[in-house]
């Protein structure tokens, strides 16, 4: 019988290790791990997924970017890669996120504003021009029309001679949290889940390096939830996707290892670290014990982290640099696989180039100067951290029990029910209001907002402005793509897509890829499915 420590040592010895001295700045050598079993890399992974932690590999510094036209964003991508960014992350504009073209009346005033505008494959070609798609990993933050964006990415790869099997990345595609928090849905929940399941099947079969869902608590938190609610709702959604895939006969060990998560790193330092550790533990236990996974990789909660946009203040915005640094540190101490650090000007506008660079530099300081990457789970074993981890787990389990009951033993049905009866939006709105009241009553201090307000200057920093010409330019571009394409081929492709939507036994991905190749627009593709699936309108509750 080997001891857990011997097992850990063997796993550690077999792990790659970065070529850098693992010692303090004073030259004191430090061990790779301290404290007790289970060690990092051991089930249930509370202490991290990998035996050597960040000694093997630092987290991926993945900065979310997107604005204006595809060329604008392509330039920002290349700038981030030149400055040491190691992954791309695409922000789409609101019309794109909602499956609308730039010439839709709904798009008025929103084209290229909060992200990049993508209407057809032609835009996607420009977005990734001169970027080697087999060398980078790309994250696309989109949900309602996720299948169309994935299809476009695959088609760009084909054009550039990169086979889909070699493309690495993540597409958010977490539709459940849209009904709960972010509100970027097109169809009702059930047909939307079919699209998600089709994408899981497609990527499992054809894109082994692709993560088809990034189950996201980030937006739940930004919408106002507590840390425990973020944890609970996110993992519950994860269980729901697992149940949906299992119902389709998918192998949990196959798709399970390609699920990934996305959490918020907010300002309450220890609560956040406890939340990250609890997330790994809960996921490992549930995947093994409730859903029967046997491959350890299918039990690992891999996650991306973004610092809390909602914590940034418009008042004295430079203070946000300090907030972001602390939140980034919590993400690193919580063992995130990748990290986006927010820019200090985000409460005022989209990030300027300088602010985005400072944000990247902030996480580089955490990674390379503070020494936190030398030791895996450096806080593990500390009584407060272990208590906080247990407490986060306990609170999350209460929510799972509620959803399980709501769904008569199915978390998936519980999530549907919670969406339909307003449970999620109600819980989130209550938490948001409670927080606001505390700030208003000065029971909670926000520096520069309700305390220490001296020193505020009137003038905005140099904000990124999207000129009004972007919208006009993008509309003209779309018009010319529509003019140049073969409209008969488009019509045939869209009819096929509608026919496939009617037949739930057919995977939608092949016909979406066909439509994309024919330069059908995002909205045309969305409408081809909407004819069958209908739309979703949220009940307005306050």
């Amino acid at each position: 019988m080997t001891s857990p420590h011997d097992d850990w040592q063997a796993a550690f010895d077999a792990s790659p290790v970065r070529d850098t001295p693992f010692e303090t700045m004073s030259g004191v050598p430090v061990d790779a791990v301290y404290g007790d079993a289970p060690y990092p890399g051991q089930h249930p992974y509370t202490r991290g997924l990998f035996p050597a932690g960040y000694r093997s590999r630092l987290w991926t510094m993945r900065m979310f970017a997107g604005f204006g036209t595809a060329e604008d964003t392509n330039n920002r991508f290349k700038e981030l890669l030149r400055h040491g960014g190691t992954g791309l992350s695409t922000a789409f504009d609101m019309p794109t996120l909602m499956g609308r073209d730039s010439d839709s009346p709904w798009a008025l005033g929103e084209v290229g504003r909060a992200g990049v505008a993508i209407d057809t494959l032609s835009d996607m070609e420009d977005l990734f021009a001169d970027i080697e798609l087999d060398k980078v990993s790309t994250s696309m933050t989109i949900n309602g029309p996720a299948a169309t964006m994935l299809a476009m990415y695959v088609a760009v790869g084909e054009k550039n001679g990169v086979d889909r099997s070699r493309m690495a990345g993540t597409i958010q595609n977490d539709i459940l949290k849209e009904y709960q928090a972010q509100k970027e849905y097109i169809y009702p929940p059930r047909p939307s889940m079919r699209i998600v399941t089709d994408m899981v099947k497609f990527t499992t079969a054809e894109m082994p390096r692709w993560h088809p869902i990034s189950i996201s608590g980030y937006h739940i938190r930004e919408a106002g939830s507590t840390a425990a609610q973020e944890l609970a709702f996110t993992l519950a959604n994860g269980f729901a996707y697992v149940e949906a895939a299992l119902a389709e006969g998918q192998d949990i060990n196959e798709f399970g290892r390609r699920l990934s998560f996305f959490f918020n790193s907010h300002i309450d330092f220890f609560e956040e670290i406890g939340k990250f550790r609890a997330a790994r533990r809960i996921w490992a236990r549930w995947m093994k014990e409730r859903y029967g996974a046997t491959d350890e990789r299918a039990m690992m909660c891999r996650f991306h982290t973004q610092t809390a946009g909602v914590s940034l203040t418009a008042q004295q915005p430079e203070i946000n640099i300090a907030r972001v640094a602390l939140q980034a540190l919590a993400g690193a101490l919580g063992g995130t696989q990748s990290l986006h650090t927010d820019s200090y000007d985000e409460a005022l506008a989209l990030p300027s180039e300088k602010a985005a660079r400072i944000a990247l530099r902030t996480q580089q300081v955490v990674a390379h100067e503070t020494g936190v990457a030398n030791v895996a789970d450096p806080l593990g074993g500390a009584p407060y951290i272990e208590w906080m981890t247990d407490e986060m787990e306990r609170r999350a389990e209460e929510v799972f029990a509620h959803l399980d009951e709501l769904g008569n033993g199915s978390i998936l049905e519980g999530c549907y029910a919670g969406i339909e009866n307003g449970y999620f939006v109600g819980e989130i709105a209550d938490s948001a209001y409670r927080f606001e009241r505390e700030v208003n009553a000065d029971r909670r201090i926000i520096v520069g907002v309700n305390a220490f307000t001296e020193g505020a200057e009137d003038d905005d920093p140099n904000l990124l402005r999207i000129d009004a010409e972007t919208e006009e330019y993008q509309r003209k571009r779309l018009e010319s793509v529509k003019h140049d394409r073969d409209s008969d081929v488009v019509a045939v492709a869209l009819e096929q897509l509608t026919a496939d939507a009617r037949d739930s036994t057919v995977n939608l991905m092949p016909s979406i890829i066909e439509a994309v190749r024919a330069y059908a627009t995002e909205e045309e593709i969305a409408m081809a499915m909407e004819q069958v699936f209908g739309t979703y309108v949220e009940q307005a509750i306050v």
Partner: protein
Amino acid sequence: MPDTPATDHKIRIVLAKLGLDGHDRGIKVVARILRDAGMEVIYLGLRQTTDSIVAAAEQEDADAIGLSMHNAGHLTLAPAMLAALDQADLEIPVIIGGIVPDDDAEALLSAGIAAVLGPGAPADQVVAAVRNSLAS
């Protein structure tokens, strides 16, 4: 509170998200703040058009309209709202809340928006902005 109009009249305000922007945390908090301040709040929800807001304001006999914008579309959408009200011959003050840079806020105010509330605006400022918009 100063500037409260007609003593026995409960202020009726229509709140809405205009366009595709789905960030509704702020407007929901504002809805509760105004309700707690004794106003009648009619929240229309997401994905409203200028037409749907005009119709609701007319039907609900609204004293004010509050719109929330977080997607940098304010310079297009806010004037469109004012134009729609104008066309319907409705004189109802419009208040914008959300992420609006200072320069833009000035432009919106001179275009006829009654008030612009930024991130972190405290509850009493929100309530006062609505009351003041009725007085002017």
